[in-house]
């Protein structure tokens, strides 16, 4: 399999280089045959990458331990599911996953630009250049098919932390998000190169960004869930560099999804919107770079691989080309914009959207700064200085607060120009709801000013969204019909708008849950003998003893605890402590009792030889709503992504070179 794999990687690289050359030449010579050859090389590239991935899957399933990567991530006792997901359990395999996802996107993108013969060659070149880079990194750098002379009798087995269903789906989702940013970038490069007017291709780019955004959101959700269930520290977000790596492109993609509305409607912010596409691709590559190099201190730190330097070079080229092209086309973009395309009033949707963008970009910037601070400080002063979670929370808190305010009032701002008193009037009801809710929270015992502020703002957002839906349903004909069908019709009539509001609602839910759970979680830990109890947050948790069992390669200690509340037994939980003998590592299997109001979180920290157990207990309120909120965000994104009437309208536009100057006038 290694010969086949190596051949496929090398072939993918060569065919990508050939495709770039052929396509570039076809642009110069206007040669259709060369162009077709370039397009076919995308198919060949995809075929070879799929072949390489297939070879790796076979090697994994077949436990070919003479392949380094296979020996690193699998062992004979590894179950089938984790043998397959071991594909992305090490860095060579995850790079191959990157290339595989790229191949899929490349095929889809090629179909999507079929109707745009001017644009297509540039998309081909960008996609193949990215593909060439990653296949070269695989073939010559981090090769998953590298072999050892003396194969070990058994592999080391997959990193125990990765043996979780959440880790099975987290990396693919994240990579579908990261790699998805390649296509909008390719469209941007092509459109800038052929001077396509901003409005037309951006509508298509929006759909790709939305798909990538959905996968990134899902990836963040799965990662947070994994962190909560598997890592056993009771949290879901630690401002770890690897988490930040996914958050940064998410922030810029979110920014893009906001300004694109103003761009499409009124032709404003063209250059800004395009630069967000370039930036999102850059941050996605940077995210890959961050997760694939051991440069930063990180709980996820993977192997030290020199691939980091090449990735940084690739990133520099991609950003250089993107922004240089954008600068050169800046006058064109300005000229092509309608003369009336300028912001008219501060009390306008345009101004609100732009403010939102600046806040999101500031967020991405402070996250970037905090993430690479150890490198920056080493370059400047020679000392590596890290900044921890307090930095991120102290800086992100005001930004998130401002974003929440905008989220509530922004949709009330009319396009072009509005009247401040009218906006204030329509914000009155949700504002009152938020203040009343805040008073209720204070009465219930929320004392921290920060937590109270966030909760009030979340309520403000939720009330504004609900009111928006209620008013829209009320004002539609046939108002006496049932609520649910008319809600469905309303959302169906303007998926993008109402999908966006659903996302806002989910975001408010996530933040409210995160605030409450971090402000009110109670923790208790101790060492108990069988029959002894620990108390936490109104619970009485009795340790009933532990059992040690053996499974292939593992020693599993299972503790039985009886959970009582107000004297009545409500549950028996079985937290486990698993020791992986081949790797000499152990992990805690958290036992969680999830309720709508709170989670009881039980960790078996250790078991002493005399049978006493070290337990850590936590009661985390409202955690369930964090997951629900993220799912609501995903649903909202899906609603907006499904092509509705509007989307069908905008995707039928034609791409043209050198647009005729548009006469002044206002649609």
């Amino acid at each position: 399999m290694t010969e086949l794999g190596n051949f496929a990687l090398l072939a993918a690289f060569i065919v990508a280089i050939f495709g770039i050359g052929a396509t570039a030449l076809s642009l110069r010579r206007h040669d259709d045959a060369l162009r077709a050859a370039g397009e076919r090389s995308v198919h060949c590239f995809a075929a070879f990458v799929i072949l390489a991935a297939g070879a790796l899957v076979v090697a994994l399933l077949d436990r070919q331990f003479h392949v380094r990567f296979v020996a690193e991530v699998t062992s004979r006792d590894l179950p089938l599911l984790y043998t397959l997901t071991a594909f992305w359990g090490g860095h060579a395999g995850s790079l191959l996953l990157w290339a595989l996802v790229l191949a899929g996107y490349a095929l889809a993108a090629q179909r999507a630009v079929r109707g745009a013969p001017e644009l297509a060659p540039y998309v081909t070149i960008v996609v193949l250049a990215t593909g060439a880079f990653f296949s070269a990194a695989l073939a010559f750098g981090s090769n998953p098919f590298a072999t050892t002379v003396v194969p070990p009798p058994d592999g080391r087995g997959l990193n125990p932390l990765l043996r979780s269903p959440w880790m099975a789906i987290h990396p693919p989702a994240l990579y579908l998000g990261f790699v998805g940013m390649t296509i909008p970038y390719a469209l941007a490069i092509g459109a800038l190169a052929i001077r396509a007017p901003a409005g037309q291709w951006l509508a298509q780019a929006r759909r790709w960004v939305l798909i990538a955004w959905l996968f990134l959101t899902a990836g963040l959700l799965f990662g947070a869930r994994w962190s909560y269930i598997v890592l056993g520290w009771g949290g879901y977000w630690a401002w770890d560099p690897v988490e930040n790596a996914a958050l940064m492109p998410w922030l810029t993609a979110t920014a893009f999804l906001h300004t694109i509305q103003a761009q499409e409607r009124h032709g404003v912010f063209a250059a800004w919107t395009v630069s967000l596409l370039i930036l999102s691709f850059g941050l996605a590559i940077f995210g890959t770079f961050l997760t694939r190099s051991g440069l930063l201190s990180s709980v996820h730190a993977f192997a030290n691989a020199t691939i980091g330097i090449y990735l940084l070079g690739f990133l520099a080229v991609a950003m250089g080309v993107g922004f240089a092209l954008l600068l050169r086309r800046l006058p064109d973009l300005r000229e092509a914009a309608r003369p009336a395309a300028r912001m008219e009033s501060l009390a306008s949707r345009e101004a609100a959207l732009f403010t939102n963008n600046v806040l999101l970009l500031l967020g991405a910037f402070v996250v970037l700064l905090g993430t690479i601070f150890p490198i920056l400080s080493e370059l400047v002063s020679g000392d590596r200085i890290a900044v921890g979670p307090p930095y991120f929370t102290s800086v992100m808190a005001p930004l998130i607060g401002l974003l929440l305010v905008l989220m509530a009032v922004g949709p009330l701002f009319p396009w072009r120009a509005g009247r401040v008193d009218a906006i204030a009037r329509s914000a009155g009801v949700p504002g009152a709801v938020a203040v009343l809710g805040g008073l209720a929270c204070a009465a219930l015992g929320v004392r921290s000013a920060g937590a109270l502020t966030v909760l009030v703002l979340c309520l403000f957002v939720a009330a504004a969204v609900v009111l928006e839906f209620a008013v829209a349903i009320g004002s539609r004909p046939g108002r006496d019909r049932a609520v649910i069908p008319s809600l469905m019709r309303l959302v169906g009539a303007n998926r993008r708008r109402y999908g966006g509001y659903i996302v806002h609602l989910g975001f408010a839910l996530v933040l409210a849950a995160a605030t409450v759970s971090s402000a009110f979680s109670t923790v208790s830990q101790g060492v108990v003998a069988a029959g002894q109890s620990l108390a936490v947050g109104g619970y009485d948790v009795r340790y009933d003893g532990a059992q040690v069992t053996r499974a292939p390669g593992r020693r599993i200690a299972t503790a039985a605890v009886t959970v009582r509340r107000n004297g009545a037994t409500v549950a028996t939980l079985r937290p486990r402590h698993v020791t992986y003998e081949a790797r000499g590592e152990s992990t805690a299997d958290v036992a969680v009792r999830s309720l709508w109001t709170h989670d009881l979180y039980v960790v078996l920290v250790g078991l002493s030889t005399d049978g006493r157990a070290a337990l850590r207990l936590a009661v985390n309120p409202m955690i369930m709503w964090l997951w629900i909120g993220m799912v609501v965000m995903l649903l909202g994104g899906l609603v907006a992504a499904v092509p509705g009437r509007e989307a069908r309208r905008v995707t039928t536009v034609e791409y043209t070179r050198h647009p005729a100057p548009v006469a002044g006038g206002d649609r």
Partner: protein
Amino acid sequence: MRASRKLAAGLIIIAAAIAVVAYTGIRSAAVYYLTPTEFAERVDLREGRVRLAGTVVPGSLRTHDGRVVGFQISDGMTRQEVAYDGPLPDLFGEGREVLVEGRLSGSALAATRVMTTHPTEYKERPRP
């Protein structure tokens, strides 16, 4: 003044405010990130919070009631005693690379946070 100018002015004020918050955030959250050897040499850093990277020295674990309460980390040259009484991350163990964050108390680093790194590369074991 045009609307866009006013907006730009407002946003610059927000950005400046965030810059101030970020600066103070970095000032208060910054920890030096060192190896035990560097930490031993840098007398000037003995007072503040530091983050040390090293390997848990085999046989150095001190336990109390089945729970780890202290250990030593090493970068191959210098050892540093660590006192810690909190939740240990998964995969913590002897010979494992860890990051510890805390403040010096006596000769031991009183750690408030212990993190593990997860190398995934396969190392060939020496043949017998």
